[in-house]
């Protein structure tokens, strides 16, 4: 029982990043109706940018953080303007192929940036060590990461709820044509959502790079987060957050129960088997919209 509680607590801590990533997918999907597979590789770019700032240019952490966020924002803006905007109104396949290819393009840029090696931040920028609470050992690096993720998600929710641009984005989530008729610049909103999503993904990349080492393997986390998005429902922020935490717990439970039985990377595997199960049982996820089509 103790083991299970431990796994659940650790799972929630590591699930924070999955929740953040899932939100970054949902931000774009909700407003543009395009699923951005490329966000998995934005992680790599973010981690390498932070690595450059800290280890190559020897900047302070907060400057590195700001530069990386700015880099993510510029990346999102460029991607939206150059690649996604010409495809507005094309059949669903075209944007999917473009985002998939973007994933590989960014991966290639990542290889060039990191020269194909796995790098470390040298010294972690979040405190190491663990808090002990009875039988629980909670690593601080995970907890601070979780807090940062939660803060970002809350900031995003406040942006949606309180600001004018957020209101516009919520209108675009409902319907593009209605939004356009109300005088909202839908293209601008698309750009906002790519920028927001890329900044989120870049921050998640930094945190993951801090934990796992900066390398090309980071995009696996982004792909795992796709399982979370689907479990929560493609259109739901609440769903994304809950499902992100659930995927974290699932991975930790996999380490506990399934990893001793099966060889290989079971933690990578379990979310995808879970994804297939969701698709068979409840394809629209927990809070997804079930669209009813008419001829």
């Amino acid at each position, binding site marked *: 029982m103790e083991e299970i509680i431990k796994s659940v607590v650790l799972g929630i801590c590591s699930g924070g990043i999955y929740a953040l990533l899932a939100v970054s997918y949902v931000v774009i999907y909700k407003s543009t109706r395009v699923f951005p597979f490329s966000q998995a590789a934005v992680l790599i770019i973010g981690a390498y940018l932070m690595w450059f700032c800290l280890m190559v240019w020897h900047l302070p952490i907060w400057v590195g953080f700001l530069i990386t966020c700015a880099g993510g924002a510029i990346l999102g803006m460029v991607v939206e303007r150059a690649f996604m905007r010409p495809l507005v109104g094309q059949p669903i396949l075209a944007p999917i192929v473009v985002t998939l290819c973007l994933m*590989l393009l960014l991966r290639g840029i990542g290889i060039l940036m990191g020269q194909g090696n796995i790098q470390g931040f040298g010294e972690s920028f979040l405190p190491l060590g663990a808090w002990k609470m009875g039988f629980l050992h909670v690593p601080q690096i995970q907890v601070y990461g979780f807090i940062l993720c939660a803060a970002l998600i809350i900031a995003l929710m406040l942006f949606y709820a309180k600001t004018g641009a957020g209101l516009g984005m919520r209108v675009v989530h409902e319907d593009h044509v209605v939004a356009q008729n109300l005088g909202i610049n839908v293209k601008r909103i698309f750009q906002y959502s790519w920028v927001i999503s890329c900044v989120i993904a870049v921050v998640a990349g930094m945190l993951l790079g801090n934990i796992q080492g900066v390398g090309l393997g980071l995009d696996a986390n982004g792909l795992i987060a796709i399982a979370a998005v689907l479990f929560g429902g493609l259109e739901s922020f609440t769903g994304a957050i809950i499902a992100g935490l659930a995927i974290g717990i699932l991975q930790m439970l996999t380490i506990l129960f399934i990893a001793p039985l099966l060889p*290989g990377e079971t933690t990578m595997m379990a979310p995808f088997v879970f994804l*297939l199960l969701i698709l068979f049982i409840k394809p629209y996820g927990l809070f997804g919209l079930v669209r009813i089509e008419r001829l």
Partner: protein
Amino acid sequence: MNINRPCGTFDRNYFQAKELYRTPLRKTLLTLFIVGMYALPLLTGDYGISILTLICAFTIGMLGLQIITGYCGQISIGHAAFMGIGMYTVGILQRHFGISFWVCLPLAGLVPMFIGMVFGLPALRMKGLYLAFATLAAHFVIVYVISNWRSVTNGTDGMWMKRPEVLLGIDFKNDRNYYFLVLTITIIMTYLATNLARTKLGRSFVAVRDNDIAAEVMGINIAYTKVMAFGIGCFFAGIAGALGGAYYEYVNVEWFGLDDSIWYLGFLVVGGFGSIFGAIAGATVWKVMDEFSTLVTPITESFLGGAAFYASAAFSLIFYSLIIIVFLVFEPRGIAHRWEMIKRSYRLHPFPY
């Protein structure tokens, strides 16, 4: 029905209406093309034969994806993994049971067909994007099973495969003879795929692609159609995998990463959706690019010194993805559409339309 005909060509009976190639000119060109493909190894060396063999094998795989994605509109991001199942089916049957290649080859199509149908089942309840997720998951599950079921698949070390045995006195150890075999199978598969598009099943694929609700109203069994599209597409992929793997006489799980599945989809776009010519063009462009990037590697090496190992990997990723993205942005209908336009402007020559 076919608007791309010279004027004055009319169908006077059903046999004429059913013909694949109606005019003598097209028949002659097709015959010349096929004869030319058989004659090409005389001109090119061993290097050319290796490229041609790969182009043929990947054309079969691309035709499979054309059936799934181009005809039926179901997006598959796991096509390379199904190709891998085909390779491993032949490898496992030869290694553990010593079965002849000629028996393995149809099985290499049928096993991926069955597995593809199972993974295609989520398609029954939904469309488009969700199927992309299912096939993405399928890709990871398949690669996981292959790389970890060591007793059967020999894990990540890969395993040896044998080329087909001597048949009718032809020894397929010779690369040129093997190319003739692959080319023959490619022609048969292309013929099958072309005809499939004209059968009831093929027509219902297109109907489901264009609007599945409308198709259902017209009395098409959508579930059956979608699963069949998946099954047939994966059958083609499996055959392609078996032929490609047997060419190298070696299989490895590294050969069908997620990248390859994405390139499959991407170069299908470059070739053109919904046409057999598009699939062939896509596979050809892909493999020629492959050779181009291997040719460029020594040049990058001289530029970058010892760092070329990562640079060539990055170069091919960036180069391919940029080509696909540029094609999608500027010519979303691919090479096949451009070719049709050239043909039409030739036919209508002095007039614009």
